[in-house]
Structures are given as C-alpha cells and as structure tokens.
C-alpha cells in the first residue's frame, strides 16, 4: 500500500506523586491550604504524643483560665487544656470526614452505576434517592442517631446517608453519557459482560469527579459532625471532638469565649483548606486542562 510510514507519538506518563505536587503548588493559596491540612492531619495522628497536657484529666483548680504560658489557649470549665483537647478532637473529626467521604463515594458509585446502566432499576433507585434528598440532612442525621444511640459508628452512618444521593446522581449522569460512547458500544458488540464494561469503561470516567465530590463530602461531614455534637446529638461528650468542645463552651461563652471560638476557627480553616484543595484537584483533572497538557 502506498502510504507514509506511520509515525506514532511516544508514551507520556506523569507519576501520581508528581501530579500531587503539581496540584499542591498550583497557586500560593492552595499551597498554604495544603500546609495547613498537612499540619492538622499530622497533629491528629500524633495527638497522644504532642499534646502539652492531658486532655481528659479534670483540674478544677485551673478552670476557665484565659490563654497563658502554661495553657496556650486557656482551659475549659473543668480545667482541661483547650489546645490539647482541640488537637485530640481533630482525630474524631478527621476520621468522620474521611470515612464518610469514602463510604458515601463507595455506596454512591455502586448505586449510581446500577441506576445508570440498568434501565429498569433507574426509575426505582432514583425515586428513592429523590425522596432521601427531600429530607434535610441534619434532621435525617439527628433522627438516625436518636434511633440507634450515639457512637462513632452511628454518627458515621448518620452523616454518610444524606451524602449518598448526590453521589448517586453524579455517577448516574456520568454513566448515562459514557454508555452512549461508541467505545462502550464496541465493547458490547465484543461480547464484554456488563460487570466488565462497568469496571473497565464506565468507572474510570467517574473517578475524577468523584475525587472532587469526595473532598466536598469530607468537608461537609466534618461540619455536620461538629453541628451534631454541638446540638448534643453527636458522639459521647467524654470524647473530645471539635463540636463537643464548642457545645460545652457555649454556657461559658461570656466568661471564656475562646472555648467556642478556637475550635470554631480550626473547623473553619480546615474546611476551607479541604475545599480549596478540592477546587485545585478539580482544575487539575478538568478534561480541558488535560487536553491542553497533551497538546503541549
């Protein structure tokens, strides 16, 4: 045949680490957010070793102290060091945030794939999802916690369930558009099983949006946990969480406002950082960005 020798471009590959570093340094704001988040995560992991005081032990002698050299952020109504409690409280908050993001994404991905690919299931599943979305998420969470009693697990479930519908909708819409692609039809024509089509051709299309959605769920779960604790429907008050600390401090707000404000500030900054990082990930994974990268 008369045709020019085919020239094929070489492979290109960017490692996951390189990509993560590219995202973290994409702008000064994102860089600061990454640093803050890293500090929060590290201090939560190493909390038992780095807390300056025992966060649980009651010392009535030093109750409601303002910030000082000994107690950097002051003490609460039982004389416990506020800074130590905030550091330890980050553990629960972060576990709740990350775990509910993972659960919500996993459950939502499964249901979304089924709804998007199996037509008769679609109507049934989506009506249930619509119904779930009609209930305010805090109300639903409180109902679940009061039904099963407060523990880390019930709080996790209570926070995860209201987040699932949004993920289902997202995955379903992605699957609906991807399943019309000729390459999916070619796979059907090649006799590929439904499960394999989902795994190979549909799931990869949902990964990028799901990572982004996951960061938002994480942020929102941390906030919801704090709200639940603050309302007294959360984890047992003995365990410090950012919400618990604020809830206990509410009564003493006029004496020592720091008990509410410091944990509140930490919650805000953490959530802001997660959201900023989520935006940066979205920008990095945007198909239009990726395309520009290829052309370069």
């Amino acid at each position: 045949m008369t045709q020019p020798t085919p020239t094929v471009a070489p492979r290109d590959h960017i490692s996951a680490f390189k990509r993560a570093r590219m995202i973290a340094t994409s702008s000064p704001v994102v860089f600061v957010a990454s640093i803050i988040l890293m500090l929060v995560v590290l201090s939560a992991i190493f909390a038992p070793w780095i807390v300056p005081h025992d966060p649980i032990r009651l010392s009535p002698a030093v109750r409601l102290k303002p910030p000082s050299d000994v107690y950097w952020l002051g003490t609460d109504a039982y004389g416990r060091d506020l800074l130590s409690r905030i550091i330890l409280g980050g553990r629960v908050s972060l576990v709740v945030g990350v775990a509910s993001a993972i659960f919500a994404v996993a459950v939502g991905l499964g249901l979304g794939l089924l709804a998007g690919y199996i037509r008769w299931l679609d109507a049934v599943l989506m009506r249930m999802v619509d119904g779930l979305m009609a209930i305010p998420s805090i109300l639903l969470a409180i109902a679940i916690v009061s039904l099963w009693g407060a523990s880390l697990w019930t709080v996790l479930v209570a926070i995860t369930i209201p987040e699932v519908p949004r993920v289902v909708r997202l995955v379903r819409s992605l699957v609906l558009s991807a399943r019309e692609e000729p390459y999916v039809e070619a796979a059907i024509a090649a006799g590929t099983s439904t499960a394999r089509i989902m795994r190979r051709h549909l799931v990869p299309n949902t990964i990028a949006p799901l990572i982004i959605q996951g960061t938002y769920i994480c942020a929102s779960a941390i906030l919801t946990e704090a709200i639940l604790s603050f309302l007294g429907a959360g984890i047992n008050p003995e365990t410090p969480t950012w919400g618990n600390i604020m809830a206990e401090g509410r009564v003493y707000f006029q004496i020592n406002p720091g008990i509410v404000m410091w944990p509140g500030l930490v919650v805000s900054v953490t959530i802001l950082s997660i959201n900023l990082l989520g935006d940066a990930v979205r920008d990095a994974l945007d198909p239009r960005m990726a395309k520009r990268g290829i052309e370069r």
Partner: protein
Amino acid sequence: MSNNILDINNLRIALNGDEDKQVVKGLNLSIEVGQTMCLVGESGSGKSLSALATMGLLPSVLSPIAGSIELKGEELLGAAPARMRALRATGVSMIFQEPMTALNPVVRVGQQIEEVLEFHSNLSKSERRKRVLEMMEHVHLPDIEKMYRSFPHQLSGGQRQRIMIAMALVMRPQLLIADEPTTALDVTTQAQILKLIRELREEQGAAVLFITHDMGVVSEIADDVTVLKLGEVMETQKVEALLRNPQTEYTRGLLRSVPSQVPRMARELGSQEIVLGTDNLCKTYGGKGFIKKSREVKAAQDISIKLMKGRTLGIVGESGSGKSTVARCIMRLVDPTSGSITIGGKDIANLSQKELKPERKNFQIVFQDPMRSLNPRIEVGQSIIEGPLNFGVPYNEAMDRARELLELVGLPGSAVDRFPHQFSGGQRQRIAIARALAMDPDVLVADEAVSALDVSVQAQVLELLAELQERLGLGILFITHDLGVAAQICDEVIVMQRGQIVEYGPAAQVLGEPQQDYTKALIAAAPGKHWDFANFRPFSEAP
C-alpha cells in the same frame, strides 16, 4: 484602484508567536468583486485559521506574525477592536459548519437576525423587522412570519443554515466567509444552500471566501481555488484549470482520492453463502405510555436484505433515513421491534443478551467517529484484545494477534501500548478496524466508517477494507451518506428514505440507472457529479 475586495499578503500565523511553530506559512490570496475563492485543504491545513484571522477571531494562543489582510484596502491585522466589531457584519461576515451550535438555542431566530441590525444600523424597530423578513424571504425560507418566531431546534438543518446566511448578509457585507457551510447537511440540502450562496453573491455583489475539503463542492461553486497543505499554499488557479491540469503532486493526489460517482461493476459472485440476512426487520420508537401513548416513530420498516460472503452491501440515505438504525439493530445495540436477523445461519433477533454472547464474534462494527470509538484511558492493544479475551483466548496469544492485526492495518505492531490520543484520526480508524477483525468475524458493519476522515485518508482506509475483504472473505455492510464512496466499494446498494427501502439492487444499476425518483434526486444533488476528478476531466469528455 484594484477591484479586489480581499487581499491577503504573505500571511503567517504562529502558535504563541513562535516563528518555528507556524500553522499558516505565507498565504497569498485575493478575491475580486462577485467572485468565489475556494480554500481547499485537509484537516490541519490552516484553512479555517486563515478565515478566523480575517474575521479577527483567532484564538489567543495563535497570532499573525507577518503579512497583511486588506479588506478594500483597509488593513485588518492590528485594527482596533472597535473597528473590527464595526467591520464584522458590515464589511465581512461568516457562516459556520454547524448551524445548530452557531445559533443561540434560546432566542427566536428572527430576533437573532434583528440583533445584527440593532448593533450595526440606526433603523427603527419596525424597519428592522421589515428588513429581517425581507432577508428571510431572500434566503427562500417558507412561511417567514412563523419562522421569525421559531426557535433554532424547530427548524431543519438546511433552514438553520439559511438563517445563518440571512444573518451574515443582512448588513450587505462585501465579503462572506463560509467555513464548510454544507458539510453537516444532507446532499439535497447542500445543493440548495450552494445554489443560494451563488445566487446571493450575484445579487449582492459580494465576494465569497469558501472553505471546504470537498472537491465536488469546489467544482460547483468556485471561480478560483487555493489549495493549502499544512499551512502552505500548494497552488492557486482558476477552478477549471485546477481540475484539468493540477500543477502539484499534492493536488493531483487529492483529486485522485475523490471517489468517483460512477459505480464500479459488481464483482464475480464467488460464494453463494449468505452471511447476513434480515427479513422484514422493523424498529419502532415510542408508542408506549401509561396514560397517553407517545408518538410512534417508525425508524425502520420491513427491511429485508441479503449479504453474501466476500461482498459489500451499501446502505445509502440522508440523515434520518434509518440506515444507522438498521446497523444498530443488526448489531443488537438496539432491540428490533419485529422481524428476523440471520447471521451464520442463526436468527439472532430475539436472543437474550446472554444467548447472544457466543454469537457476537461473528459480527463486528466500525463506527464513524475515530475520536470516540476507542476508550481514551486504555492502551489500544487492550482495546483490541478485549473481544478475544471475552472468548477465552489466553492473554499472550491475544496480544500477539493484536500486534499482527496492527501490522495488517498498516501500523507498527509495537503501537499496542500507546493510547488513542497518540494517533491521528485515520490511524485510529485503522485500530478500530483491527479491533473488529480481532474476533475473526464473518460480517463487518461499517457505520459511516470513513465519513469523518480526510479524503486522502478515506481513500487509504477504503483500500484497506477492500484488501482485507479480499483476503478474509468478509461480508461488509457499508453504511454511508456519500454516493461516491458507495459507488466505489459496493457490489449491491440499498437506498433508504424515511425508514424504508426505496431501491435495492446491484450498485451499477441503482447508482447508474436509478428507477426511483428519490434515488434520481439524490444522485442529481451530489456535488461535482459532472467531473471525473481522478482523470482530470468532465465526464462529458470521457472517451
């Protein structure tokens, strides 16, 4: 003063202003009053970019680094944005390939035309409306009062393009740029739009810069032709001279690649074995509903076809004729409403997806869009072996076969671990063919498989298909809207209209001596039917 409307001198456009990354390399071009200049070239030739530069609409990463573009002696490169805005519509205006996306879907079309007048004239509201209706009449739209209030989706493709033309010409610009204005339209509509552009050019005395890849269209509309290749001018000539006596090898190659409208003779019938047959195949959409029945659309009605081993059966028709529905029914990507489909001696029309699976390897499909028919996230080798793996072929064996297949379709076997975006459109279509062949099918369904490709690439892919057919004894069901392509590769041809078979017979008979009015109209509308491009002469002069 010269009579030229547009003068482009030594225009150079570069990526990021980088001298080494020129995408248009020294374009010279001038158009006189009332003339049509065709810019011809394959994708990547820079023809659209030259037009966008003239409109001052280049994307920001591209910039002109040298040369001049003069409209009636006025320099456009570097003109102030305000001046360019004023010149668009009054001096130069443009129509695009896809009228659906070029029109705003939520604004009534009449208002969209009126908007141009609002910005560029001092006419009162009632005068504007009158002018718009006049213009709509001019472009031969029916029932203009009603059209005026229509939204784009309520119009047909041809009507939308007429609206675009009305919008472009309402300020009587001296230059009309038409960028592939008929590529997305059916042949009969295309013929009407070409006629309209010719008519308006004479009436308004405008010059036309017409961009196309289709030599047939060139022969219908051009006065002068400029051939571009990768940003370089190959030649500029009067159309007749170009078609008769092309100066460069590139142009000769382009013309030779144009599929001739004259059908080839059917090949000797080698085998009587029927590899694919359908009997009264029907597909109806809608017609269901709990409370009220939805409207029924009969996408395919009573389709009975026979495809023999080693032969090519073409289905031609305009958009909406149901030709793709037939292909999708045969592939069981949609379930037929009634009728039978026999492949390999077995009726597959009513098999469940599970029962169908073992049969799947007998029939495979190649799609139109090479960008979307391969999963962008997996290596092409993995795409090719997907089918064989489903049928229990061991991985290494399948991979070896994939390398062989890539070589069979003219690509290096080592390309198995590359991703789709690393290939050109034509290469990707070859990979899609390799994937289909990996299953050793008896039947290959090609759904507009060459329509998205440049003509020279199209010729190569058609050649490849013919070669593979010869070697492997494939039965090919070839679905196309292009009569030239059908004439060149089909033994038998089916003409479809509104879901029904209009005419069915040997290609030479259907396309050479059509019996039905619809077939005759289709053939009459095909652009460039008088020219035998490959032999550089009109058919009337053929010996």
